[in-house]
């Protein structure tokens, strides 16, 4: 009888400890990254040059409340503003801060303004609502157009809080096309693909293996841009 009580008390303490950590243990892991580089050699950015970053973020994955519940929310590992984050990450990994400017611009859909008749409607300058004079005056050197796609596939929706297993495969693809603005010339593209398996295993104590594919793809693309367009060795993007 006493032994049973002792065992129960010990189990109780174990449950209290587990409950303290419930949902708290994240195991960050790196995504598997593949880079497909089809970019021509580009002269490096000069001091004072400006790099424009624009494009389209991926829409959030479609999901309903039941899916969110039985997958422990593993499809929710999604950030909305990858392109803005990319501009910031380029500055973050730039080993010579201040050498060049990174400007995040929103793509215009209306075409060139009437006073910019010299720009062809399909040209990169028209798309960004720029003129040759503006390119020259503001030292606009390269424009990087980024298109993001984000996919999440459910593998194991077996989670009923606070027990079970859930697993989703997350995949982010960033396609970056690079333009030389003074020459209005397309220089080619990079494609960065980051994949990872987001897994939750829970028995009150939750272990969440969390590859952030959007973050990993963004960081890798930023590093590639610093290497290829600025000819510099990028810094590590460490969390503070």
């Amino acid at each position, binding site marked *: 009888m*006493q*032994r049973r*009580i*002792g065992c129960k*008390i*010990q189990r109780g*303490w*174990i449950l*209290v*400890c587990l409950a*303290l*950590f419930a949902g708290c243990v994240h195991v960050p892991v790196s995504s598997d990254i593949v880079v497909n580089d089809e970019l021509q050699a580009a002269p490096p950015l000069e*001091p004072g040059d*400006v790099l424009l970053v624009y494009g389209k973020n991926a829409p959030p994955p479609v999901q309903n409340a039941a899916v969110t519940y039985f997958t422990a929310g593993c499809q929710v590992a999604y950030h909305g503003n990858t392109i803005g984050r990319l*501009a*910031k990450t380029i*500055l*973050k990994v*730039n080993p*010579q*801060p*201040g*050498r*060049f*400017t*990174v*400007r*995040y611009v929103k793509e215009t859909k209306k075409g060139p303004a009437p006073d910019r008749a010299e720009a062809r409607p399909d040209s990169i300058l028209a798309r960004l609502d720029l003129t040759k004079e503006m390119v020259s005056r503001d030292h606009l050197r390269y424009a990087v157009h980024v298109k993001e796609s984000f996919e999440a596939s459910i593998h194991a929706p077996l989670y009923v809080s606070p027990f079970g297993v859930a697993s989703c495969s997350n995949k982010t693809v960033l396609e970056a096309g690079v333009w030389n603005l003074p020459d209005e010339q397309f220089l080619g593209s990079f494609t960065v693909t980051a994949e990872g398996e987001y897994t939750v295993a829970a028995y009150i104590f939750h272990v969440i293996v969390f590859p952030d594919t959007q973050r990993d793809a963004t960081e890798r693309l930023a590093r590639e841009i610093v290497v290829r367009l600025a000819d510099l060795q990028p810094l590590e993007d460490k*969390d*503070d």
Partner: protein
Amino acid sequence: MQAGPVIFRDRKPDMKNGLSKGVFLCTVLLLWLISGCAASGPKGIYRAHYGVEPPESELATLDMGAAYEAVIDDRYYVSGGKYGSVKLPAGPHRIHWNTWFGVSVMVEPSGQAAFGIVSDISLEAGHTYRLCADRTTGHGYKAYHWIEDRTTGRIVYGEKKP
């Protein structure tokens, strides 16, 4: 008949030991958790200028204050976790700064509210400015973001929380 009481006397200290160990382990785990909240060491000063360093008399100081990160003139990324203040040349600057507040999940499902602010301000040499943020609480809460010139006490951008 004699074996029973012997076992009883042996088990009791074991149970106490188990309890003490449990309490000790939980205390250690709690302390480990709380240690993450402890204040970090002194932060560095970010120098937001490129090339030849301007004389100190031509620089203004920007205290990161409530901002967890800032981008200055689309050229410099400053992490609030790493740097406490920024030295930058006096004159006009565009500062894009981000703040966040922990809020009730009843107010925001994510448990936090993040804000991005773009401030175009002109800084004076020798002055110290601070990025400030505060909020009201409850549903329909309002966030306030402002930049204060600590040298003169004036608000140079935004609205201070009343």
